[in-house]
C-alpha cells in the first residue's frame, strides 16, 4: 500500500539551531518516528506518526483504516435486518453485547415495537456483564502500557468467569449473536442466575485488590496524574463520550440521560472524575472512572437478577422485518462511550443505509489535541486511556 509521501505543509520539520560555547552551530531537527501498525502497545493496528523533538511530542498524525471491513456496505447488500447482527458483533469485538443491544434498540424504535420485560432485564444483565469484561480489558492493558504486567493477568482471570457465563448462555465467548431485534436468541440456562450471583459476590473484593495493586500505586499515580488532561470544552467540541467525558467531570451518561431499556428502574450513579490525584480529566481520572463503573455495573446486575420477570424471550421477534420508509438515529452507552446507529429504511427488508457512529472513532480524534507537548511515554498512556478498539474505529 503506497502512502502519499508528501505531508501537508504544516507538518514539515523546522530545523532549530543551538550554538555551543565554542561557537559551533549544532542543528537540532525534529524526528518523525512511526509507532507503526505492529506495535506491542497500540491496542491493535493503529499507526501513529509522531513528530518528536527529543522525547517531547510535537505532533501526532494518526492513520487508521488497517482493520476496515466494509461493515456499512455489507449491511446494505441485500441482507435483512436480523442478519446484520453478526456484523455488528464484529465491529467492537471486546464489547459485542453492547453493540448488538444498540442496534436492536435502533431497529425496534424504527419498527415501533415493544419487547417483553424479561427480554429487557436479560439485555441489561448481559450488557452490564459485558461492560465489566470490557473495562477489565481496558484497565489490564492500561497497566501493561505503564509497565505493570501482573494486574493484566488478574483482570483476565476475572474476565474468564464472565466469559464462562456468556458461554453458558449462548455458546460463544466473544462474538455472541445473542441480542436479536425483538428479543433474544436463547433463554437463560437454569444455573445462570446462581452462577451470576456467585460472580458478583466474588468480584467486588477483586476490584479493591486491583486498586491496591495498580490504581493507588505511587509510581502509577506519578505516571498518570496530570497527563493527557482533556478540558471540558474540548471534550464537548470533539464529541467525546463515555469514560473520557465523565473523566473530565461532565455528568453525562446515556443510560440515565437518554434512557433506553429498563435502566431507570435500578439505583445506580454515573461515576465522575474529580481530579483526586491531579488535574480533572487526566488519565488517572479516566482510569478510576472505569474502575468505579465496574462497581456500579455489579450493583445493577444484582438488582436486575433479583427482579427478572417470567416470559418468553422469543415472543416478539418479528417473522419478517419490513419497517416503513423513514430513518432513525438511536444511541446507547457502550463501555467506550456513545454508540449511535443511523439507519435509513426504504421500506424493503434490507436497510438502505446503516451508519455506525462508533465511540472509539470519535474519541481517537481528540488524541492529537491532548498528547501534544508530552513525552512519548505519556503518549502511550494517553492512547491507552482513550480505550480504543480498532475494530470499532475502522469498522
Amino acid at each position, binding site marked *: *500500500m*503506497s*502512502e*502519499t509521501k508528501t505531508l*501537508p505543509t504544516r507538518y514539515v520539520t523546522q530545523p532549530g539551531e543551538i550554538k555551543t560555547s565554542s561557537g559551533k552551530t549544532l542543528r537540532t531537527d525534529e524526528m518523525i518516528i512511526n509507532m507503526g501498525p505492529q506495535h506491542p502497545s497500540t491496542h491493535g493496528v493503529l499507526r501513529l506518526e509522531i513528530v518528536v523533538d527529543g522525547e517531547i511530542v510535537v505532533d501526532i498524525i494518526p492513520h*487508521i*483504516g488497517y482493520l*476496515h471491513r*466494509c461493515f*456499512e*456496505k455489507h449491511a446494505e447488500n441485500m441482507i435483512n435486518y436480523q442478519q446484520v447482527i453478526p456484523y455488528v458483533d464484529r465491529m467492537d469485538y471486546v464489547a459485542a453485547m453492547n453493540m448488538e443491544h444498540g442496534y436492536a434498540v435502533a431497529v425496534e*424504535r*424504527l419498527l415501533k415495537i415493544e419487547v417483553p420485560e424479561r427480554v429487557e432485564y436479560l439485555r441489561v444483565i448481559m450488557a452490564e456483564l459485558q461492560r465489566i469484561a470490557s473495562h477489565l480489558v481496558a484497565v489490564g492493558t492500561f497497566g501493561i502500557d505503564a509497565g505493570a504486567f501482573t494486574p493484566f493477568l488478574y483482570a483476565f482471570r476475572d474476565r474468564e468467569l464472565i466469559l464462562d457465563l456468556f458461554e453458558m448462555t449462548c455458546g460463544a465467548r466473544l462474538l455472541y449473536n445473542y441480542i436479536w431485534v425483538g428479543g433474544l436468541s436463547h433463554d437463560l440456562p437454569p444455573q445462570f442466575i446462581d452462577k451470576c450471583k456467585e460472580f458478583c459476590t466474588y468480584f467486588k473484593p477483586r476490584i479493591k485488590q486491583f486498586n491496591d495493586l495498580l490504581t493507588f500505586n505511587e509510581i502509577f499515580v506519578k505516571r498518570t496524574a496530570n497527563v493527557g488532561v482533556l478540558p471540558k470544552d*474540548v471534550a*464537548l*467540541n*470533539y*464529541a467525546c463520550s463515555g469514560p473520557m467525558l465523565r473523566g473530565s467531570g*461532565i455528568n*453525562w451518561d446515556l443510560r440515565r*440521560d437518554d434512557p433506553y431499556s429498563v435502566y431507570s428502574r435500578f439505583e445506580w450513579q454515573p461515576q465522575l472524575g474529580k481530579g483526586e490525584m491531579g488535574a480533572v480529566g487526566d488519565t488517572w481520572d479516566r482510569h478510576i472512572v472505569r474502575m468505579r463503573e465496574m462497581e456500579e455495573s455489579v450493583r445493577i446486575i444484582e438488582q436486575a437478577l433479583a427482579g427478572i420477570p417470567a416470559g418468553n424471550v422469543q415472543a416478539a421477534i418479528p417473522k419478517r422485518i419490513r419497517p416503513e420508509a*423513514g*430513518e*432513525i*438515529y438511536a*444511541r446507547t452507552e457502550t463501555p467506550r462511550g*456513545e454508540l*449511535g446507529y*443511523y439507519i*435509513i429504511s426504504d421500506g424493503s427488508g434490507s436497510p*438502505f*443505509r446503516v*451508519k455506525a*457512529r462508533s465511540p472509539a*472513532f*470519535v474519541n*481517537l*480524534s*481528540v488524541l492529537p*489535541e491532548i498528547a501534544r507537548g508530552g513525552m512519548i511515554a505519556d503518549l502511550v498512556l494517553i492512547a491507552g486511556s482513550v480505550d480504543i478498539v480498532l475494530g470499532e474505529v*475502522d*469498522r
Partner: protein
Amino acid sequence: MTAAEILENVKSEFGDSVVESKLDVLQPWILVAPERMREIAYFLRDDPAMQFDYLMCLSGVDYNNGKLGAVYHLFSTVHRHKIVLKAQCTKEDAHVQSVSAVWGTANWHEREAFDLIGIVFDEHPDLRRILLPDDWEGHPLRKDYKVSEFYNGMNVPY
C-alpha cells in the same frame, strides 16, 4: 425547544437557505443549502436559545437518485434538545461547506464521508482518505460503485 421552534429560528435567520423540512417524523429534519452550512452551524451552536454544542454524528448518504447528502445529528447538552440537519448535492458537483471549524469532531467524520461517499467538504483543513488507502480509486459506499479489478497489481475480487 421543539423542532418547529428551531425551524422558525433558522428560517428567520437564513430564510432562503432552508430548502425543505419534515417535522412529523420520529426525528424531525431540516434540509439546508450546502453552501451556507458553516454559517448555519455557527448560528445553531452559538445562539443562546439553541446551543447545539454536541455533534452526535455526521453521515454521508448516497440517495440513489443522483444525489448525495450529508446528515448532521445535533444535540444540545444545555437544553437537551436534538435536531437533524441535512445538506444535499448532486453527484457531479458534490460540495458541502465544512463545519470542522465549528465542531472539532466533524474533522474525522467529514474525512470519512469524503472517503466513502465522495462529498468534498470545502475549506476542510486536511481532506484526505481516512479508512481506505490513500491511493484507492472510487468511493465504495456509493450505490453504483464497481469494485476495480486490480489494485497495485493485486487481483481484488477473488
